[in-house]
């Protein structure tokens, strides 16, 4: 992994890519669970590397894997937003117009409401975190300190920071899951709270 000298940056990373192409392909396949999507993403990764100059990187292999992992996350995010949007349409069963006939501001307003709800869910979930996990998450995600800096500020080890952050992420995921954020279909009959469904006030 040390063959990367820091000169000849763009092609250097492309070289590292070739070296790890097989591993990256395996990783993308395991991460996507879909070999076609994995192939596309590997291609996308290669295009990104070959069309852009990227500065010298201490650990190019880790960098490539992270980049691949981020690509998958980006796609997952897009897909998830699409799922939420489709679900919004399905949920407006009181509204007899078909999605095509509904005006854009309706949907935009719905999305704004949902995004506001996301903020509220996250805010209360963060407030409810154990103190250490909460501080680590705020420093890392909201103040933008890297994990090493968070450790220095809190006076704990890097692995201590990781444990706090892992606890925080699991709690946030649970809070979102409880409110139906990940559910692929309309399945909010159970445990629906007033805050989770303001639409009912608008469309009696």
């Amino acid at each position, binding site marked *: 992994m040390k063959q990367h000298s*820091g000169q000849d940056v763009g092609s250097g990373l492309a070289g590292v890519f070739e070296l790890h192409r097989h*591993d990256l392909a*395996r*990783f993308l396949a*395991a*991460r996507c*669970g879909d070999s076609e999507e994995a192939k596309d993403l590997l291609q996308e990764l290669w*295009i*990104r590397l070959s*069309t*852009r*100059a*990227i*500065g*010298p990187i*201490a*650990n190019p292999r*880790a960098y490539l*894997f*992270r980049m691949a*992992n*981020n690509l998958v*996350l*980006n796609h*997952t*995010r*897009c897909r998830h*937003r*699409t799922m939420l*949007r489709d679900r919004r349409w399905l949920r407006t069963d009181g509204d007899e117009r078909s999605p095509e006939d509904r*005006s*854009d*501001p309706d*949907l*935009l*307003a719905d*999305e*704004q*409401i949902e*995004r*506001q709800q*996301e*903020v509220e869910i*996250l805010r209360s979930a*963060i407030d409810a975190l154990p103190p250490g996990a909460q501080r680590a998450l*705020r420093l890392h*995600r*909201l103040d933008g300190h*890297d*994990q090493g800096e968070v450790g220095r500020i809190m006076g704990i080890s890097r692995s201590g920071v*990781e444990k706090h*952050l*892992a*606890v925080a*992420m*699991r709690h*946030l*995921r649970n809070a*979102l899951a409880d409110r139906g954020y*990940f559910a692929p279909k309309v399945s909010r009959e159970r445990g629906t709270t007033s805050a989770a469904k303001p639409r009912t006030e608008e469309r009696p």
Partner: protein
Amino acid sequence: MIREDETGNSRSIFDAASAWHVETSRDDMDWEGFMTWLAADPRHRSAYDQIALADSLVEEHRDNLHEHDVRQAGRWRRPLKWSAGLTAAAAASLIAFFAPHFLSAPMATYQTFGSTEQVALEDGSTVLLAPRSRLVVTGGRDEKIELAGGAWFNIRHNAARALAITAGQVEITDIGTRFDVQATDGQVRVAVAEGEVQVSSSSLAQPVHLHSGDALLFDGEGGRAAVSKLPTDAVGQWRQGRITYEETPLSLVIADLARYSGIQVEIGRALRGRLFSGTLVVSNGKAALRDLSQLMGLELHHDRSGYRLDERER
């Protein structure tokens, strides 16, 4: 958890998933071990997706979740807040309702600031005007529209009517369709979601016909136009708080961040033409900016004077 029941099991899966997720930022992350774990059970992948989505949602809403919002507000221009935009959206639909009345005047000007505005044309066609944009509608049977900034057009086809839209140096005619126009600093982008349009300019030898899924980038300085393909659901995606780019010059991406996120970024001249492909969540400007800098391998600086993107130092 010793019991092998479903809850116990999935709980340990989510523990493991978040531990892996946190570890990915380490240079000595065990990617082989991660792969083995992912491959061991399909539930692992879905658990990891959920953890990563939850984390990225925190990033997306970072500005709204910040404890020190007030302190920061004085230091930089706050990005467009959808929450604050709610009332504006309600107001915009009211305007749309009354617009035909306004349009009996020969000319109407619409200027948006932090939110969007829906403009209704006489024949029932609509224009959704992007934030920080301006639309001038000159009424009558042969309507003329001038656009500076961004707008989503949903125009009813009417062969008897000659509607022309001017954006920068280009003119869009033969319209009966849904399409998006972005006009920024001499550069104009036209993307068609449905139907077709014709784009012409005095600096183009002949008009360009665009069909569904076509995206045109017109460069005013060079007087050139390039047509590429864009998935139709990515056309006018800013309405959902996102923008998808395909080999787009960074200068335009930066201009979009200013328009859609209210976030000002400076870039060096050498970076202006660098191409970017990817999707940015522009409803959260700072997160979009971080994503952009990471995806392009650029250094993001922030100080009193604002944000700046630079090459990584060698």
